[in-house]
Every structure is written in C-alpha cells, then in structure tokens.
C-alpha cells in the first residue's frame, strides 16, 4: 500500500484536527445539554442539594490535595535525600497504593474503622467505648483518598528532589537568603510545576471518584450526576451537572498552562544530589515513619484482602477467573495500544506542522477526560455511536456494543497518561537530530527504529504501565459498555461487593491488585 499521501501537509492538518475532534467528543454532549433547555428539576436541586454537593466536592478536593500533597512531598523529600535500611524497596513500594482500586480501599477501611468494624468492635470487647463515627464528616474519607492518591505527588516530585543546582543555592545564600527563604523562594518554586502536576492528577482523581464517596455515602457532584440519572431519569440534568466538573477541569488546565509558561526552561546544569546515609536511631525512626505509611496505604489492606479471599467462598481455581483475568489484560492492552499510537501520531503531527497556538490550545482539551467520571464519557460516546448506527442503517451494536467502544472510551478517559510521556520524550529529539540523520540517508524505518523508538522507549514503557493500571481499575465505563457475556475483574469485584459480600469480592480485587503491581513494576523497571 502506498502511504505517500500521508506526507502532504494538508492531510496532516486534517489528521490533527480530526484527532482533536475525536478527543473532545465526550465533552460535546455536556455542552450541548445546555442548549436543550434548563432541566425542570434545577430549582429543586439548587435549593435542596446543590449547596451541600458543592461544599462536599470542593472541601474534598482541597483537603485531599492537601493531604496527598503533604504525604507525597514528605515522602519524596525523605526518599530522595536520605538512605536508610529498606530504602531500596520502599522507593518503589510507595507507588503500590495505586494498584488498589479506590472503592476496594474504601470498603477495607470501613471494615476496620466503622462502628461495627474490627477496631471498634475489639475496643468495645475490652470495655472501651469509642464515640467516633468513621463515616461522619470528612476525616476518614480524606484519609482514605489521600492514602490512595499520594503516590501521584510522590512519583512526580521525587525526581525533582533528587537533583540540585548547587551554584544557584550558593548564589541565593550569598545574597543573604537563609535556608528557609532559599527553600521557599528557590527550591520550592522550581519544584512547583511538578508538584502542581501531581496535585492536579490528585484533584482530577478526586473529582472523578465515585466508588469511595458512595461507600461513605457522601454526596458529591459525581454521585449527583449518577442520581440525576437514577432519581430524576434525566440524562440532560446529569450532563448539565457533569459540565460543572468539566468547568473545574478546564480551570485546572488553564492554571497548569500558566504554571508551565512561567516554568524555567531547559536547565541542563542539574546535578544528582548526594543523599545522606542515616545511621542508628535516625535511620530506624525514618524507616518506621515510611514503613508505617506504606503499611497503612498498601500492606495492611493487601493482607486484609488476602485474608478475606482465603475465607471466602470464591476460589482461584474457578475457571471464570482465568477468563476475567484474560479479559482484563486484553482491555488494558487494547487501550494501551490505542492511547500510545494515537499519542505518538498526534505529537508527531503537531511537531511536523509546528503547531500554532490554536492547535496547542485545543489539544489540551483532549486531556480533559481524566477529570470526567467514566459513565459521563461512556453515555456521551454511546449516544453519538448509536446515532451513527441509525444514520447509516448499521446493525445495532455493530459500533456501540463492541469491545472497541469500550476501548475508545477508556482511551479518551486516560489519554493524558500517554500524551504526557510521549510529548516529553519527543522534546528530547531535536529537529536538527532528525535532519542530520536524514542527511546521512536514514530511511523512515531506520529513523523510527534507531532514533524515535529508543528515545521514546522509557516514556512509553512508563506510561503503558500506568495506562494498564488505570484501565484495569476503571469501573463505571467498563460496566456500562462491555459486550454481552463479557466481564472483567473490576466488574466482578463490584458485583460481588454490591450486596456487601466483601469477602467474596476480595478475590477478584486481589487479582486486580496483583496485576496492578505487575503493571507498576513494568513501568518503574527502567528507573530503578
């Protein structure tokens, strides 16, 4: 087949706008919903529900970002500046909480902390009556979400803390700045874009979270979207509520853009810092601190799941777990292939066309899916595809009821995880490098295998792990869009936990966590 037509700039331009259009697809129904008139229930919602929803949502987002930000920053600082026993494995084990789906974490935590939970029951048996209600207020919810999400901050911030620019620090000191001022005016602002990126991920995860808040029965915008649909049978209302989330996400991206603009460009003079090796009680107390966080956020929940899985009526040997695992892996693989190949194509096109402001702006919009709950994207895309089927007289389900729709929706939701690393990787490949390779007679194939691929590889591997992880954990979209007789670990976990059968749900959840660990291990392999 002849691909030479692909080289024409016109085709490329159409291609890039086509991809952008595809990327903003899930947002269209949200915007269109406002043109269908204000839903008649808005008055009721605004009077009785909205204030509480907004307060809950904003408080949670702020508190969780604070909690996850603090834990993540503290750990990133400790792990980059100090060496102590156990440092080597904790270094990446601290990312493991990402392998536990948030809703699983929530029922594990309630299983411990609630009035009827392990701890309070035991305390009452000893005659200690606690009056603390774990589900009341924000405390335990914020703790759970912060423990779930701190690895985002930790992961992006640690590489920043691992490097230093001694001359700059010396200069600042010579100009009279003490350690405190040097940290706040120099080190912190320089690490801030990364910190902000981590915090933005946390904020978007918190906004999109449905599982955890519904287990705590704390109404937020995301749960309101679902109940607008369930209680008022109004998809329009659900979409209009969802557009509030979109608004928050847009704002976040604008702030991020602004942070990035003021970000210091190319600093090639970073040096790796020399970490301090701790000894004696200092080493042990730091180890205990880090290990405690690791235990609460991963080890203990993991052990709990293991225990439940063992006492439950579910069994590994059941053949359905094979197919569930295979389906889960296949889904992850599919989304990974789509996201990464689209991301590479997209970024190459952008670069080839020396994309102007409009393309840059609009391509930011394609990343917004990350902040939207999966069901919002799912229903939007489903509507569009079914419309297409009707339009073209296709057999129903040909488009809308196939694994491809699910993969498409998941790719739209998690596109940001591929786009970021790919665009970072491409930035290291200068156009001059390509020019000189071409002048040496390198064929396109050689160019990709010898230059693009090796330089992009670390980023691609890291992001494929993350994509896998997120896709496997995703529930609402997967549940809504899966084809007939098709299930995955996340769905099975959910269905078993639906009626409170947490012991039963533990086994598929455990398999999910194990696959997640594998994905994390793959994504971190090169860095260790």
């Amino acid at each position, binding site marked *: 087949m002849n691909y030479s037509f692909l080289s024409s700039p016109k085709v490329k331009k159409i291609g890039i706008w086509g991809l952008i259009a595809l990327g903003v697809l899930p947002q269209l129904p949200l915007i269109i919903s406002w043109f269908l008139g204000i839903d008649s229930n808005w008055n009721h919602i605004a009077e009785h529900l909205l204030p509480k929803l907004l307060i809950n949502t904003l408080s949670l987002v702020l508190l969780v970002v604070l909690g996850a930000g603090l834990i993540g920053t503290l750990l990133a600082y400790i792990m980059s500046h100090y060496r102590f026993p156990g440092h080597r494995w904790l270094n990446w084990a601290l990312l493991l909480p990402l392998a536990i789906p948030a809703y699983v974490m929530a029922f594990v935590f309630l299983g411990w902390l609630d009035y009827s939970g392990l701890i309070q029951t035991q305390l009452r048996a000893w005659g200690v009556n606690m009056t603390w209600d774990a589900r009341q207020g924000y405390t335990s919810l914020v703790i759970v979400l912060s423990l779930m999400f701190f690895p985002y901050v930790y992961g992006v911030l640690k590489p920043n803390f691992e490097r230093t620019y001694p001359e700059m620090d010396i200069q600042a000191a010579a*100009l*009279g700045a003490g350690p405190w001022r040097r940290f706040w005016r120099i080190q912190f602002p320089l690490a801030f874009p990364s910190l902000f990126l981590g915090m933005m991920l946390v904020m978007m995860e918190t906004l999109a979270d449905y599982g955890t808040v519904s287990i705590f029965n704390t109404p937020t915008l995301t749960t309101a979207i679902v109940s607008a649909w369930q209680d008022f049978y109004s998809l329009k209302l659900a979409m209009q509520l969802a557009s509030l989330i979109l608004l928050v996400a847009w704002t976040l991206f604008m702030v991020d853009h602004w942070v990035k603009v003021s970000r210091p460009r190319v600093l090639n003079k970073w040096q790796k810092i020399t970490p301090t090796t701790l000894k004696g009680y200092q080493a042990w107390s730091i180890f205990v601190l880090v290990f405690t966080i690791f235990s609460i956020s991963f080890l203990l929940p993991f052990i709990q799941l293991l225990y439940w899985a063992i006492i439950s009526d579910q069994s590994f040997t059941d053949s359905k777990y094979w197919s569930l695992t295979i389906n889960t892996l296949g889904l992850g693989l599919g989304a990974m292939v789509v996201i990464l190949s689209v991301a590479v194509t997209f970024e190459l096109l952008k670069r080839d066309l020396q994309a102007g402001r409009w393309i840059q702006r609009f391509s930011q919009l394609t990343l917004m899916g990350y902040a939207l709950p999966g069901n919002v994207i799912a229903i939007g895309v489903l509507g569009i595809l079914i419309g297409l089927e009707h339009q073209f007289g296709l057999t129903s389900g040909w488009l809308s009821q196939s694994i491809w729709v699910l993969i498409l929706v998941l790719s739209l939701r998690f596109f940001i995880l591929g786009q970021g690393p790919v665009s970072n990787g491409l930035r290291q490949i200068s156009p001059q490098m390509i020019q000189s390779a071409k002048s040496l007679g390198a064929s396109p194939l050689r160019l990709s295998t010898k230059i693009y691929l090796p330089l992009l590889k670390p980023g691609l591997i890291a992001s494929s792990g993350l994509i896998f992880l997120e896709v496997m954990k995703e529930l609402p979209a997967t549940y809504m869009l899966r084809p007939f007789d098709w299930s995955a670990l996340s769905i099975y976990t959910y269905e078993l936990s639906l009626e409170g059968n947490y012991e039963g749900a533990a086994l598929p959840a455990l398999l999910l966590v194990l696959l997640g660990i594998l994905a994390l291990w793959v994504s971190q392999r090169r860095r260790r």
Partner: protein
Amino acid sequence: MLEIKNLQLCHSQTAICQNVNLTLRKGEIFGVVGPSGVGKSSLIKAIAGVMPLKVGSIYWQGKIWSQEQQVVALEKRGLGLVLQDPALFPHMTVEQNMVFGLTSLSKSDKQKRIAEMLAFVEMTGFEKRYPHELSGGQAARIALARSLAPQPQLLLLDEPFANLDKDLSLRIIGRLQKLFAKNKTSVLLITHELKEAQSLCNRILNFTANGLEPLVA
C-alpha cells in the same frame, strides 16, 4: 579586612595540597591568576564557606568565619559572589533576580538601585526578561549586577568577564574601578586573563602549586 591563615586546599584527584596565606584590606583589589585546574575556584568557595576546610582559618574584620568544625553560614557573611556559572534564578525575571538581595531597601530605593546597576552592565530594558531569554554573556552581566546591587564590602569574582567581548569588558572594568574606589570594596578577582587583572587590580598574585605568590612580571 579579610585574613586567610594557613589555609590548606587539597585536590581530591592529585592529592596535592597548597598552603594559602592572604590578607586583603579594605578597598584593596587583588587579582589571582594561574593555570586552569590549579584550584582558583576552590579558593573562592573556601572563602565563601561552601567548602569545608580541614586546616587553617579565615577571619573577616577580626571575627572568625571559617575554621575546622566552625563555619559562619554564607548568608551571614554579607559578601558578594560572582561564579563562573551565572546561576540566575530561572523562574524570576531579571528584575526579580536583582531585587533578591535587596531586602533591606525601600521599594523606591530598590527600583533606583536596579536601574543603576542595569545601566552599569549596559542591560537597561531587560528588566522583564527571563533568564532563558538571555544569551550567555547577558546572563553573566546580570549575575555581576545582581551581586553588586547589595553593595557588599567584600566581593569575590570568579571569571566574571569570560563571556563578554573585549570592548564591553573594558567599559565595565572602568566603571568597576570607580565603584570600588567609592565604596571602598575589598575585591578578590580570579581570572586567567592577565590583562583584565592588570587593568583592575592593585596587586596580582599567582596561584601555583606552592600557594599564592606575588606575580613576577
């Protein structure tokens, strides 16, 4: 007055140590020349207190600055420092870079000082630029201006003119002479250009394997 007594500077690779003794009085401008790699930059780092020393001591105005196990923090020394790397703060504009050391001045004084110093290095109009928008030579001039702005009594300069063209360096050196004379600044200039040293300094020392020696012309 800066006094360096018995300071031992050792090379980690060659294990050769130099013994340094130096007295720099108020208003004196010393040049230090010598082949590269001999440890001139280490001398400056030792005086700035960012390199621990094992043997010897450094005094300023009769007070101890550095000796073994005892170091006054760099930010408390009130000296000016220009390193080979301009090390401008990349997230701040030129103006913000320059104001960083001017904490004790009023707002209008700050503005005045910045304008003065930018004119001094012929960089007026660059206030709002970010470091990544400057060339190497421009960054070096801003780094010099930033260190001069707080009017330190002791100034340590490590190859400040390396990236500048000849005419410009000469003009700046001319202004520096006047400024140092007016403020009675003590200056230690490290350079590999003998001519630079000759045009600016009262005295020139040669840094060799034996330590600091008066330059025999």
